[in-house]
């Protein structure tokens, strides 16, 4: 990676660099708007109606204290939480409300085993926030390997593999379901580490909710939430506007660390019972965001200020017809369309001339059919097929590109031994037009000897198909002159370059005539867990291991351009593993007080690095003597950006009589590798690490009268900042939320952390 970026970056060493240079592949779209990149939001919902209906057919939860929460992600059909055989966790509305946070990543980061990270490249952008936003690291895998779904449908518009979570409004989330471990057997590419499914509210009865939010950095938010049912029609409407002045962590650099922004989020959902057997769901979503670009560049070797803005738009629509064939079987017909665009420009302030602009448009069309069959107490079956038609058109890609994937999945779940034993077997086939059929199987077992214990084990294969950028990126750095070419366009581009005399003389390009197409990255994952519940305790333990091979990385071609500068492309190279253990404990002291704590231990290493160490091929340089010596296994910390230790601790106080609550959370992220400094490209020395840190958050709310609830809180109480390595973390912020809720629809299950 490093090679690719370097030359460009040099150009702007001392400016806000990424903004004005072509960072390359990772940056696919934008040149300038790096600070920005709000990511899309989406819509759709296939799985919602599932929850409305059929609850009666869901098995009774046989685990004490698991309540009656229903999840849909783990099996693509509803199950009681306590009956799910694969590792699943749930963040409910009540928890989200009690945190008061408008940032989904903050809420996720308080979950055991979920770490919110910058992309490896992003962390390196000296003092500026990661242009790609922050993503979810699960089981030690990068954000690109977790599928993020909104109401069951995938979000598009990932940048460098990261889907920016910060732009998903939290105001209408009903619950967030997290499934850990390879889930490609149901969700295909990207679900290698797992799935996060954000499920939004469904219209149950009349409700009007208004929220006014104010927080530090002149941040203002307004939300309208309206739901109603008219006869057989349900309507849910959500509108949210958020604006902020951003913040600046380094006064010595021109411009802000995060520039001012504003965004608008709208979501309309309509349900219609056409007949007793036929139900329709329509969902429309619109996201519109704009962020200023304002920074210093060097123009004709002199400092100059540029300004402009980045606008992001995401529109999606989803339709689902559900037909109950019989009381025990049903079929869904779904159609999902999503279009994401990102346009950015900056002009030179002194003369108004356009300095740079980029554009990026991605769309996906996804028809799908799903069938479910239940044999009460004996088995459940789900199967489906569908297709993904993806299109991308970006200023850095070789023209408009299209990909089509056909897929089919099937899964059966058996209940044996008086329903104490559950066995799941499933598989999914994916055939993309440019590579061979891919099979992703998964098996899972759970055993519940009594009402207190549950033991689970699951194993599966995961995969991730090569991105558009890996295949079609066509990037020639105009200022410096190196090239980065996707594998699919490599041969024609090399021919073109040779004809135009742009390759060094004597370059032998013939071996690229049949350039090997990239293979999907694949993984094998295993998770074994145990859960204990009683009236006061919920305790969970798990151990996991993932082996990933064929990871795609950049390499240098054996010949250079005529200007002597390198040409890069992609290939499948690396093999890594991640393994670890996690634990979650919750204890309720009284009706008012409860505490919980979680811990994850993680090891994530590159297998080639370990082999090189064992063979005595890997050296390190002493920072003082500058002499080299061999690296030992003890020296090697593991892959960058992974913390061996992460933990959280929470205290919840709820007084239902006085109608107030307080929720305190502490999240610890242990030290993690940041960047090599001693000449071996691995993390093996203390000064290559970012020190561990705590985030302490607190919120308290009180209700007044029938409709008013006021909440105040503070995030990052310790005011932790790290302008260089973690510029995405603003300092301490305070907030106030004023909520009006007329005709409170449901009494959310409270009393749960």
């Amino acid at each position: 990676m490093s090679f690719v970026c370097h030359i460009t970056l040099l150009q702007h060493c001392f400016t806000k660099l990424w903004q004005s240079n072509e960072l390359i592949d990772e940056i696919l779209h934008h040149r300038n708007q790096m600070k920005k990149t709000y990511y899309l939001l989406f819509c759709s919902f296939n799985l919602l109606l599932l929850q409305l209906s059929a609850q009666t057919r869901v098995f009774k939860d046989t685990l004490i204290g698991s309540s009656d929460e229903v999840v849909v992600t783990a099996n693509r059909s509803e199950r009681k939480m306590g009956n799910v055989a694969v590792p699943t966790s749930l963040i409910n509305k009540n928890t989200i409300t009690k945190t008061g946070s408008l940032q989904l990543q903050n809420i996720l980061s308080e979950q055991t085993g979920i770490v919110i990270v910058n992309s490896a490249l992003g962390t390196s952008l000296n003092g500026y926030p990661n242009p790609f936003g922050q993503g979810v690291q699960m089981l030690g895998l990068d954000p690109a390997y977790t599928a993020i779904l909104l109401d069951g449908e995938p979000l598009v518009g990932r940048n460098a593999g990261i889907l920016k979570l910060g732009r998903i409004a939290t105001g209408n989330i009903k619950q967030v379901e997290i499934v850990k471990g390879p889930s490609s057997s149901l969700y295909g590419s990207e679900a290698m580490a797992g799935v996060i499914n954000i499920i939004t509210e469904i219209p149950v009865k009349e409700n009007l909710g208004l929220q006014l939010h104010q927080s530090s950095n002149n941040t203002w938010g307004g939300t309208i939430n309206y739901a109603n049912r008219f006869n057989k029609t349900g309507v849910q409407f959500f509108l949210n506007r958020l604006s902020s002045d951003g913040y600046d962590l380094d006064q010595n650099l021109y411009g802000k660390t995060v520039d001012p922004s504003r965004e608008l989020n709208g979501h309309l959902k309509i349900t219609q019972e056409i007949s007793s057997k036929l139900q329709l769901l329509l969902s429309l979503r619109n996201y519109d965001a704009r962020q200023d670009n304002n920074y210093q560049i060097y123009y004709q070797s002199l400092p100059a200020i540029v300004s402009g803005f980045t606008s992001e738009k995401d529109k999606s629509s989803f339709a689902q017809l559900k037909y109950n064939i019989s009381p025990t079987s049903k079929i869904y017909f779904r159609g999902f369309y999503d279009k994401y665009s990102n346009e950015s420009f900056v002009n030179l302030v002194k003369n108004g001339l356009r300095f740079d602009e980029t554009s990026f448009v991605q769309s996906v069309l996804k028809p799908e059919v799903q069938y479910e069959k239940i044999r009460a107490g004996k088995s459940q079956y789900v199967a489906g097929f569908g297709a993904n038609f993806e299109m991308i058109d970006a200023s850095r890609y070789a023209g408009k590109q299209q990909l089509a994937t056909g897929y089919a999945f099937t899964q059966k779940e058996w209940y044996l031994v008086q329903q104490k034993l559950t066995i799941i077997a499933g598989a999914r086939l994916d055939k993309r037009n440019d590579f061979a059929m891919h099979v992703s199987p998964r098996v899972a077992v759970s055993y519940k000897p009594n009402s207190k214990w549950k033991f689970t084990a699951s194993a599966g294969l995961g995969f991730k198909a090569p991105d558009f950028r890996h295949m079609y990126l066509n990037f020639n750095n105009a200022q410096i002159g190196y090239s980065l070419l996707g594998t699919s366009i490599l041969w024609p581009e090399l021919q073109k370059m040779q004809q135009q005399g742009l390759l060094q003389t004597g370059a032998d390009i013939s071996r690229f005539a049949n350039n090997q197409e990239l293979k999907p990255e694949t993984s094998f994952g295993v998770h074994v867990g145990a859960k204990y519940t009683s009236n006061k305790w919920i305790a969970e333990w798990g151990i996991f291991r993932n082996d990933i091979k064929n990871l795609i990385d950049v390499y240098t071609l054996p010949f250079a351009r005529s200007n002597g500068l390198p040409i890069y492309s992609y290939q499948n190279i690396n093999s890594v593993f991640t393994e670890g253990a996690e634990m979650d404990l919750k204890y309720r002291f009284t009706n008012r007080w409860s505490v919980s704590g979680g811990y994850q231990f993680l090891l994530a290493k590159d297998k080639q690095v370990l082999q090189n160490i064992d063979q005595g091929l890997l050296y390190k340089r002493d920072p003082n003597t500058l002499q080299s010596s061999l690296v030992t296994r003890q020296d090697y910390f593991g892959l960058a950006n992974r913390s061996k230790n992460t933990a959280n601790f929470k205290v919840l106080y709820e007084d239902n009589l006085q109608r107030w609550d307080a929720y305190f959370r502490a999240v610890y992220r242990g030290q993690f590798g940041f960047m090599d400094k001693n000449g071996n490209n691995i993390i093996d020395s203390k000064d290559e690490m970012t020190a561990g840190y705590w985030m302490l958050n607190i919120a308290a709310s009180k209700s007044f009268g029938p409709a008013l609830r006021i909440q105040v809180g503070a995030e990052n109480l310790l005011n932790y900042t790290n302008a260089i390595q973690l510029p995405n973390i603003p300092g301490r912020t305070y907030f106030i939320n004023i909520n009006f809720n007329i005709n409170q629809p449901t009494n959310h299950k409270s009393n749960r952390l």
Partner: protein
Amino acid sequence: MKNRFYVIAAVALVVFFTACSKSNTAPTVVPAYSSTQTLTVNFSTTKPFAFFAFKDSSIVVNSDSATAKWDFGLRFTNFLVNSNASGPGNAGVIMQDGVFANLNTAPSTGYAYDTTSAKLAIKDGSWYDYNVLTHSFVPKAGKVFFFKTADGAHYAKMQLLAVDYAPFTGPAPSQLLYKFQYVYQPSGSTNF
């Protein structure tokens, strides 16, 4: 693994032969010459190379680029050795993994030359990692360069210690400072 075996075998052979010659003719032991130098190198790939000679630790003027007075040249991160496409000399180089102090015998064969301008002895990118945070070119640890000098008759071992930017103002650096240590054997022996 296989390559390593050959390297070890080659080293063993060299050691064996030199050991023999020692016992037959008592050579006059010339002490190897050790030095640590800092070479100022142009950052721009359109500016001239900096040329260096191990024999006397000298920087060779650019007008002598077409002579055998220099052993290697540097510009940006590109190395030249004085042979074939790059110059009239017979300089070659072998890059080997190991601890500098422990590698005390230069291979007698296997040197790479600047065969053509497209096929240089030292490939760009083979000896450093770019650090995006500091924008520095970090020489890979444990890389030792064995040089056969331009006269084709002497050997030197060299390792890069650091590559830094010369202080500069403005958008882009203009010069890199290459700090390296080397041992030059004036006797023509491959032992250091």
